[in-house]
């Protein structure tokens, strides 16, 4: 399957959500529902996947910014997250939000805890490892639930990529690249 075809699967799901056939008499009732209720199930899955990928991308970028010594080891995970976000973003219409369980909740006391970077480089690297492990788990769950087989295949690959990044970063952490 070509990249274009793979994206077409996602785009088609998105288009279905936007241009769904809703009779006029139903529109008022539909408007009252939560936005998720009229979104194609796979677009909702894509929105959740995108939120998870973005959160880890932000954490990696923030960690690179705070700990210059970790910049090199985090370059590949950053590139991977950017690739995943780019693919998923094209499948999610602007007006579709992730489910409440996956969207970051703003904190009154500062930045989201998930993107707060520990001051100790070793702990900061460990936090990225855990974030990749969590992303692997959540993305696998989304792949399991996806209705489109082609979309499930891409999500499964993204989950495997997160597992790879977690393994590579854990090796680097164990080798002391995170410092003391």
């Amino acid at each position: 399957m070509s990249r274009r075809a793979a994206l077409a699967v996602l785009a088609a799901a998105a288009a279905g959500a936007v241009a769904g056939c809703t009779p006029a008499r139903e529109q008022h009732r539909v408007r009252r529902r939560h936005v998720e209720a009229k979104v194609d199930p796979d677009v909702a899955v894509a929105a959740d996947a995108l939120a998870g990928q973005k959160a880890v991308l932000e954490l990696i970028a923030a960690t690179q910014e705070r700990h210059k010594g970790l910049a090199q080891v985090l370059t590949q995970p950053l590139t991977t997250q950017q690739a995943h976000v780019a693919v998923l973003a094209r499948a999610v219409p602007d007006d579709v939000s992730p489910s409440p369980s996956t969207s970051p909740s703003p904190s009154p006391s500062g930045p989201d805890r998930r993107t707060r970077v520990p001051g100790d480089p070793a702990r900061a690297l460990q936090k990225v490892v855990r974030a990749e492990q969590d992303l692997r788990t959540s993305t696998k769950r989304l792949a399991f639930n996806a209705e489109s087989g082609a979309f499930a295949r891409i999500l499964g690959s993204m989950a495997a990529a997160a597992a790879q990044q977690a393994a590579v970063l854990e090796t680097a952490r164990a080798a002391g690249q995170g410092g003391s």
Partner: protein
Amino acid sequence: MTPLQALQHTLAGEHAAVYVYGVIGARVSVSQQPDLWQRVGEAYDLHRDRRDNLTAMVRAAGADPVAAEVSYELPNEARTPGQLQQAALETEQRCAAVYADMVGSTSGANRQWALDALEDASVRLLGFGGQAEPFPGVGEL
């Protein structure tokens, strides 16, 4: 590809993997490449178990499991330590692609099996000198 075809396709891939790892394992020196020897042995055991899993899954789907070929073409000459490691790496990469296809053609427990196998192969290939990539098993992205 139907779910049953996906199972048979993956089983055929496991037959090949078991064969290739059998050859590699016989050629790796336990004294000179103990780490590679151990990794190859673990991979052989794992793929043999997966072959047996898939055989049962195909039978559960009401079909006759596809049989193994008499022999398979190795990814390379598989003579030097470098070639042996490369052969193992390519075997895992090919398996990852097959598992990804199975993810896309199955659902429920069979899809979960394929997701777990895809993740394992993607991490296992790192131990054979492979590099992490954004879309393991999905070559066109």
